[in-house]
């Protein structure tokens, strides 16, 4: 912001009322402070203040070896921990030019999609709760539990599973993995229509979500809003399609695009993505090739000096990892382009002119995870 704009923004008129939404607020999943300027009940502008849970992950990565820093990336976007791990691993594998086994690619892709479903389930229940539908919270968590059980059986942890290692996986998946995943898909195909009956069709929900938070395609591209939030504005930004990684080039799936550009369109994109993720898993789960769970890697990984860049699609958008190596066993510089950081700063444009109660709906539809913003 130039100085003029800051001056313009900071000096409100006399009747303006400035309140702080957060840092502790039930609708911001994490610690985020929004400085909201109100005229009556209407939002004039808002300034996000970030950094409440800044842990310096990028700096901490510089002191860790490439195997050690994997567990830090879990803690950025904790709801898509698996994709975060994979982004770093792809970067390291690129740099070393290791050929990873097919089995690893398949399992990684299945886990990506399972994690995406789990993340969207949590978003769905929290979004419903933000808008006052508490029942949806229990229904979403009930089904998410099934995925977390699969994760727990295979990796031992439910949320922050540092399961992907450079070169492959930490260990092989549990023998029950295929069976339980298939059971879950069968179960969730029956339960997902319930979500629509419960919340999507609900008249109160629709009135609160439709026509709120209009984000044009230009705005989405301008702010770099990716993921389901960007695709709700008809912005085709799915990294799985643009630059396929893992086994995504072997499966048939549609990139879900919404044309409504409002909160409800973003909602519908996420609901449709859950169906699409189940399709992807069904195509892969029966065809997992036999083989090693990891490529042969040296115990101490040293990347050749240079710059490496990889991106993956997390549940919230495009995560890019940029590594600068000087040939040592630790990275010289590590930079994460996290999706939520870009998605947060479009909030001012979306919420200006709407009522303060709609601000909750709009920020909920962007599906913000605050540790990912602060990192």
């Amino acid at each position, binding site marked *: 912001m130039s100085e003029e704009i800051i001056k313009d923004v900071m000096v409100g008129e006399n009747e303006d009322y400035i309140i702080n939404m957060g840092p502790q607020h039930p609708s911001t999943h994490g610690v985020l402070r929004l400085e909201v300027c109100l005229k009556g009940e209407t939002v004039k502008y808002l300034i996000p203040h970030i950094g409440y849970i800044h842990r310096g992950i990028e700096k901490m990565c510089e002191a*860790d070896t490439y195997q050690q820093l994997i567990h830090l990336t879990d803690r950025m976007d904790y709801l898509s921990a698996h994709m975060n791990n994979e982004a770093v691993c792809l970067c390291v594998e690129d740099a070393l030019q290791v050929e990873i086994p097919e089995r690893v690619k398949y399992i990684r892709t299945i886990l990506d999609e399972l994690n995406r479903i789990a993340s969207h389930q949590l978003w769905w229940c929290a979004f419903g709760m933000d808008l006052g539908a508490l029942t949806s919270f229990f229904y979403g968590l009930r089904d998410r539990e099934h995925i977390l059980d699969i994760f727990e059986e295979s990796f031992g942890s439910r949320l922050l599973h*540092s399961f992907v290692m450079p070169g492959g996986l*930490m260990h092989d998946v549990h023998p029950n993995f295929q069976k339980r995943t298939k059971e879950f898909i069968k179960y969730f195909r029956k339960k997902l229509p319930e979500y629509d*009956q419960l919340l999507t069709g609900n*008249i109160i929900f629709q009135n609160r979500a439709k026509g709120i938070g209009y984000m044009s395609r230009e705005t989405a591209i301008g702010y770099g809003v990716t993921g389901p939030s960007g695709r709700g504005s008809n912005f085709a930004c799915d990294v799985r399609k643009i630059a396929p990684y893992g086994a995504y080039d072997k499966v048939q799936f549609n990139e879900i695009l919404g044309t409504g550009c409002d909160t409800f369109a973003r909602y519908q994109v996420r609901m449709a993505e859950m169906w699409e993720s189940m399709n992807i898993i069904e195509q892969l789960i029966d065809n997992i090739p036999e083989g090693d769970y990891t490529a042969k890697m040296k115990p101490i990984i040293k990347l050749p000096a240079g710059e490496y860049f990889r991106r993956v699609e997390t549940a919230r958008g495009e995560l890019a990892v940029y590594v600068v190596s000087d040939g040592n066993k630790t990275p010289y510089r590590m930079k994460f382009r996290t999706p939520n950081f870009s998605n947060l700063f479009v909030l001012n444009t979306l919420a200006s002119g709407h009522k303060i109660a709609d601000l909750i709906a709009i920020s909920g539809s962007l599906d913000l995870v605050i540790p990912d913003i602060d990192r």
Partner: protein
Amino acid sequence: MNSIIEYFTDLFKGLSSLWAGMRVTGKYFISPGAIVTQQYPENRKTLKMEDRFKGEIIMPHDENNQHACTGCGICEMNCPNGSIEIITDRVPNAEGKLERVIDKHIYHLSMCTFCGLCVKTCPSNALAFGQKFEHAVFDRSKLTKVLNQPGSSLKKEAKK
């Protein structure tokens, strides 16, 4: 006139949408078999975690109070958070040579992030994940544990 018709169609559409939602919740209300809630503190006797569950790091000892840890320090080196400290000692063995044995394998549970690198990289499989997950204590110092039991010694066949 049109607006009145619109008003009533909207009203009935709205009511039917609410009814559709209530039908879902009502179905679960009258079928207790669909309840999935675990009564946690009451079911502690029967609660079993998965085999691979990462509860805490333990050092398995056999019936002779012997473990497999040679004190090489690879787990200490691989730990990203410094939650493992190994204090080694040199004692003469049967042939009179000085041999490295662990004095204390200290594990700071409060610093551990359960990444699993120590268990994976241990060359003699001396570490494993335990199933215990109730770690709440009143004093922080209780979270610092010594993994090797007092009086324990190195398993001879584990030595390479």
